[in-house]
C-alpha cells in the first residue's frame, strides 16, 4: 500500500509535466463519458492518506486517478492554460487556513461553476476558508468552533458512556439514485459538526439529517444557553446539485470516511441489533458514486418533432397541426449509457404559459414520444421538457418553434352554413343583370 503510494508520488511530477504539455489529456469529463476521472484530494495532514485509505482505494478501484496533496502545497493549481487539470475535488483538509499555489476560494467556486464536482468534509477544527466554501454552496456550519453534534437518543452505543457525540444515524434520504438501490441496513457513524441549510438556496438537500433530539453544542461545557442549532434543522450530510449539474457533497465529519468508522461495528442506542459493520462504507461509496456522476446522470438526444405523417422537421407549424414529438433519454450507469425508464417525463408546448402539457410515453428503450394538436393560437412556442427529479441531473430542453395562422388559401372555400348567403349574392347578381337588360332595352 505504502509502496503504491510512493510510486504514485514519484509518478506525479511526470504526470503533471505531461498534462501541462498536453492539456487535453485529462479533459475527461465529456457528454459521452460523464464520470470524472482525475480527482484532486487535499489533506491537511498526510496521515489521512493511510487513515482514510479504504475510501481512497475504493475510488481507485472504480478507476479514478487520485492526486493526493497537502492543502498548502505551493504547486497547487486547478487549471492551467484555461484547462482544468482535474474533474473533481475532495477537500479533506478542514483546518487549512489558506490553500497553497493558485488555489483559493474563488478558484474552488469557479471549478464548481465550470461543472466539476466537490466533496467537502469538515470537523471540529474547521477553518474559515472551508466554512466560506460551504456557505457559498448554501450550507452554514455551526459558528461555534467548539460545537459538535450531540444526540442523546440516537448515539452509537460503546463501552464507555461518552459524551454522545458519536452519532449513529439511519434516517437517509429516500432516493435510490443518490444512495443506490441496495438499502443501507446499518446506521452510519458520524462525529463532527452540524450545519444548517440556507433557506434561500433551493438546490441544497439533506441526505442525512440529524434526529429531532440532536443539538449542536460544545460537549465539554455545560449548556448555559439554548443551542443555536437543534433537532432536524441540523444536517449531518448534505448535497447540492448545481444548475450546471456539478455535484457537491458537504459533511461535518471527516471521520465518517475514515477506516476506523468504515470498519467498526455499530449499535444504535435503544436498539438491540448490533451490526457487525457500520453503514459508513456503503454510504460513502454510494454517495461518492452519485457525486462523481456514476449514477443519476441523464442525457437527452435526438429531439425530434414533425407533423403526423411526415418525417422532416418543419421550421414552423400552423395552428391546429397535428404533430409528433420525441426525445431519447439515457442514463449513465458508470460505464455505459442505459435507457432511462420513467413514466413522468412531460413535454410542454409553451408560450409564456404551457398551452399543452403531455406525459411522454416510453418504449423502455430510451425513446419518449407523444403526439398532440397545436393549439389554435399563433406565436413563438417552445417545446419544453423540464425533468427535475430527485437525484437525477436536471433535464431542461427547450426548442423554439413558431406557430403561424392559416394562409389565405388554407381556409375552407365553401362553408355549408353559408350557402344561403351565396344564394343571396348570386341571385342578386342575376336579378340585377336581368333588370339592367330589361330596363335598357325594353322601351
Amino acid at each position, binding site marked *: 500500500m505504502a509502496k503504491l503510494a510512493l510510486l504514485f508520488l514519484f509518478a506525479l511530477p511526470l504526470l503533471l509535466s505531461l498534462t501541462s504539455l498536453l492539456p487535453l489529456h485529462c479533459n475527461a469529463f465529456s457528454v459521452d463519458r460523464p464520470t470524472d476521472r482525475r480527482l484532486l484530494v487535499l489533506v491537511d495532514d498526510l496521515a489521512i492518506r493511510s487513515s482514510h485509505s479504504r475510501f481512497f482505494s475504493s475510488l481507485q478501484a472504480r478507476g479514478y486517478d487520485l492526486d493526493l496533496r497537502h492543502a498548502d502545497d505551493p504547486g497547487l493549481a486547478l487549471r492551467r492554460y484555461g484547462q482544468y487539470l482535474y474533474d473533481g475535488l475532495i477537500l479533506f483538509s478542514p483546518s487549512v487556513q489558506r490553500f497553497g499555489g493558485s488555489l483559493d476560494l474563488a478558484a474552488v*467556486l469557479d471549478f*464548481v*461553476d465550470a461543472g466539476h464536482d466537490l466533496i467537502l468534509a469538515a470537523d471540529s477544527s474547521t477553518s474559515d476558508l472551508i466554512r466560506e466554501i460551504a456557505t*457559498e*454552496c*448554501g450550507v452554514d456550519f455551526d459558528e461555534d468552533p467548539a460545537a459538535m453534534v450531540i444526540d442523546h437518543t440516537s448515539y452509537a452505543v460503546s463501552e464507555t458512556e461518552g459524551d454522545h457525540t458519536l452519532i449513529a444515524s439511519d434516517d437517509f434520504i429516500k432516493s435510490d439514485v443518490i444512495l443506490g438501490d441496495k438499502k443501507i441496513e446499518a446506521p452510519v457513524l458520524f462525529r463532527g459538526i452540524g450545519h444548517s441549510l440556507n433557506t*434561500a*438556496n*433551493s*438546490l441544497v438537500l439533506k441526505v442525512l439529517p440529524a434526529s429531532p433530539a440532536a443539538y449542536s453544542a460544545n460537549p465539554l461545557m455545560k449548556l448555559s444557553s439554548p443551542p443555536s442549532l437543534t433537532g432536524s434543522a441540523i444536517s449531518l450530510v448534505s448535497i*447540492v446539485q*448545481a*444548475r*450546471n449539474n*456539478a455535484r*457537491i457533497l458537504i459533511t461535518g465529519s471527516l471521520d465518517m470516511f475514515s477506516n476506523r468508522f468504515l470498519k467498526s461495528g455499530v449499535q444504535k442506542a435503544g436498539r438491540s441489533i448490533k451490526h457487525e459493520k457500520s453503514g459508513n462504507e456503503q454510504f460513502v461509496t454510494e454517495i461518492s458514486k452519485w457525486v462523481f456522476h456514476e449514477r443519476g446522470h441523464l442525457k437527452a438526444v435526438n429531439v425530434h418533432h414533425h407533423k403526423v405523417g411526415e418525417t422532416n422537421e418543419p421550421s*414552423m407549424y400552423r395552428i391546429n397541426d397535428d404533430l409528433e414529438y420525441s426525445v431519447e433519454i439515457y442514463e449513465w450507469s458508470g460505464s455505459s449509457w442505459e435507457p432511462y425508464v420513467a413514466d413522468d417525463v412531460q413535454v410542454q408546448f409553451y*408560450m*409564456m404559459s404551457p398551452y399543452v402539457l403531455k406525459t411522454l410515453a416510453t418504449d423502455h428503450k430510451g425513446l419518449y414520444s407523444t403526439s398532440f394538436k397545436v393549439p389554435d393560437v*399563433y*406565436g*413563438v*412556442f*417552445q417545446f419544453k421538457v423540464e425533468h427535475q427529479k430527485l437525484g437525477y441531473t436536471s433535464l431542461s430542453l427547450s426548442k*423554439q418553434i*413558431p*406557430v*403561424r*395562422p392559416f*394562409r*389565405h388559401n388554407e381556409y375552407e372555400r365553401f362553408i355549408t352554413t353559408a350557402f344561403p348567403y351565396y344564394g343571396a349574392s348570386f341571385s342578386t347578381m342575376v336579378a340585377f343583370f336581368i333588370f339592367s337588360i330589361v330596363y335598357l332595352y325594353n322601351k
Partner: protein
Amino acid sequence: MGAKAENGPKPPPPLSSPPPFKALVKLKTKQQELLIRSAALALIYVLAFAIRLFSVLRYESMIHEFDPYFNYRTTLFLTRNGFYEFWNWFDSESWYPLGRIIGGTLYPGLMVTAALIYRALRFLTFAVHIREVCVLTAPFFASNTTLVAYFFGKEIWDAGAGLVAAALIAICPGYISRSVAGSYDNEGVAIFALLFTFYLFVKAVNTGSLAWSLASAFGYFYMVSAWGGYVFIINLIPLYVLVLLVTGRYSMRLYVAYNCMYVLGMMLAMQIRFVGFQHVQSGEHMAAMGVFFLMQVFYFLYWVKDMLNDTKLFQSFLQITLTCAIGVGTLALGIGMASGYISPWTGRFYSLLDPTYAKDHIPIIASVSEHQPTAWSSFMFDFHILLILFPAGLYFCFKRLSDATIFIVMYGLTSMYFASVMVRLILVAAPAVCLISAIAISATIKNLTTLIRKKSKAALTVSSKATSNLKASAKALLDQSLPFQRNGAIAVLVGAFYLLSRYAIHCTWVTSEAYSSPSIVLAARGAHGGRVIFDDYREAYYWLRQNTPPDAKVMSWWDYGYQITAMGNRTVIVDNNTWNNTHIATVGRAMSSYEHEAYEIMQSLDVDYVLVVFGGLTGYSSDDINKFLWMVRIGGGVFPVIKEPDYLVNGEYRVDKGAAPKMLNCLMYKLSYYRFGEVTTEYGKPTGYDRARGVEIGNKDIKLEYLEEAFTTSNWIIRIYKVKPPKNRW
C-alpha cells in the same frame, strides 16, 4: 418658382412687345402658353424631387427614423419572397413570443409600390438596389403630387392657380418633412393618393361622369392600401356631400359621383386585410354609410317631387319621409352599437376630436411626440407665408363659390383643425393650404397684371392713392377709377414676389437644416465649428448582428424595435407597431422595477439582452431617461404596482441627488448610468455630470447583480446589457 414668372404670358401678349424667340412667334398663342406651362411644370417636377435630396447629400442614401425601417424590411421581404409570402407573412422576430401577422396588420401600398418600381427598373435593366428605390420613393411621389396639385388647381380655379399650387407644394416644408429622400414611410405615397383621390372626386362631381367617379374609387383604394389616414377621406367626402345637400346643391352629378365612389371604394377597400370589414362595422366609417342612404332618400324625394305636382302635399310627404329616414338610421346605428356589431370609435379618433383625451386615457398615443398638439411656431415653420395667404384664398373661394371651391374650402378648414390637434397632421393640411394659397396668389397676380396691362393700353389718367395690401388691390380692380392704381399695382406685385422669394428661401433653409436628418445618425457642431457625426445607433445594431446568437431576444423600449429587427436582425419584445398595450406595459414595468423584479419579468420573456439609449454623455436629449416617465405611465396603466409619484419628487422629475429613491434604483436608471459616475463629461464639472439634463447624477455607485454590460457604443448613446443566467449554486 417658375410658376410665378409664367403668370405673365398667359393673357394674350401685347402686339407691341418684341418677339423673344422666332420660334415662339410662329406658334399660336395657345401653343405658346401650353409650351411654357408644361415647361414650368416639368421644372417644378424636377425641383420637387431635387429639394428632397438634401438628406442624401448631407448624409448618405439611407433609410431614416423608425417606421421606415420596418417598411424597408417588409419591402425587402416582398421583393425576395413574392407577394403571396408577404401577404401571409407571420413574423416571429418581433413581439416575442406573440409574433405578428405582418401581412394582415400593415398597409401594403407603400411596399407594393416600391417593389413594382424596383421590378420595373430591373426589367429595364437598371441594376439598382432595393434600398435606393425605397430611399427615393417618397421624393418621386412628391413630384407626382405636384402634377396632381396642378390639375386639382386647374379644376377648382384655373391653370394659373394650378401652376402656383404645384410650385408651392413642391417646396412646402410641411410636406417635405415626411417626404425627403430616405423617409420611406406610408405618408410619402399617401399624400399623393389623398390628393389624387380628392382631385378625381371633384372632377367626378364637376362632370357627373361615371368614369371619373370610378377612377376616384380606385384612387381611394390606393389610399386605403397605403395609409390609415384614409379615414379622413371617408369622412370628409360625406361631410362635403352633406354640406352640398344642406345648401341645396344636390344634383345628379353629385349623386353619381358619390354613390359610385362610395360603393366601389368600399368594396375595394375591403380587399385590404388590415381594413377588412371596417367600412361596414366601425363607427368611424358610419358617416359615409349614413350619407349614402341619405342620398337615396334625396333621390327618392326628388322623384316623388317630380311625380307630385302639389307643393303642399310634397311638403308634408317630405317631413314624414325625412323623420322616418332619420329615425330608422338612428335606430339602426343604436342597435348596431349596442349589439357590438358596429365598433365604437378608436382612441386615436377620439383624440382627434378631443386633444386632451389621449393624455388622460391612452398614454401610448400621447407618448409619441408627433401626436402632440401643434405649437404655433411649427405652423409658421411649416407653412410660412401660406398661413397669411390661406385666409385670402378662402376669401377668393367664397367669392366664387362652386361645388369645387366648396370642397377645397372644407378640405382646408377640416385639415387645418386636425393639423392643430396633432403635429403630424400638418402633412394632411399642407396640400389644402397650398391649393388655397395658390388661388390667392394666382387671383391677385392675375388681377394686378391685367390692371397694369389695361392701363398701359388705355393710358388713363391716374390720381394719387396708394394701395398697400393684397386685398385692397384686389378690390381696387373692381373700382376702375381709383387713383395711382398702376403704381400701386406694381408695388403690390413687387411685394408679392418678394414674399414668394422669401418663402422659397425659407423652404430651402428648413429642408436643409431641419428636415433632412435621418435621426439614426446624429450630427452636432463640434467645438471648432466642424460637423461631428454620432453613428452610435448603427454601431450598436451592427454589434448585435455580429456578436449575439441569432435567436437572441433583445428588450428595449418600443421606439427602437423596428430598427433592431431591421438592422440588428434580432428578435425584439416590442416594437413601433404598438398593437399590444399589455406587452409594452410589461416592458415598461420591467424598466421601472428594481433589478431583481425586472429579472423575473425578463426571465419570463426569455430576454437575453437589454438595450437602452442614453444621451448623458453627448447631451442627446431624446434618450430613454427622458422617455422614462412614459414607460412608468404605460406600465402603470396596466400594472398598478407601478405608480408615477414614486418616481417624482414633489411632482418634479429629477435624476440628481434629490431624485426619488425608486427612481435612483430602478432598472432604467441603473442601466443608463452604470459606470457613468466615473466619467468626467465636461470640463469644470464633477464626474457623472449628465449633459442632457444638466445635472450631476444622484447614484454614482451602481452595482448590477443580474445583468452585465455587454457593449457600449463610442459615444455611450446605446448601451447593451446581457442578462445573466440564474446563479449556478442557488
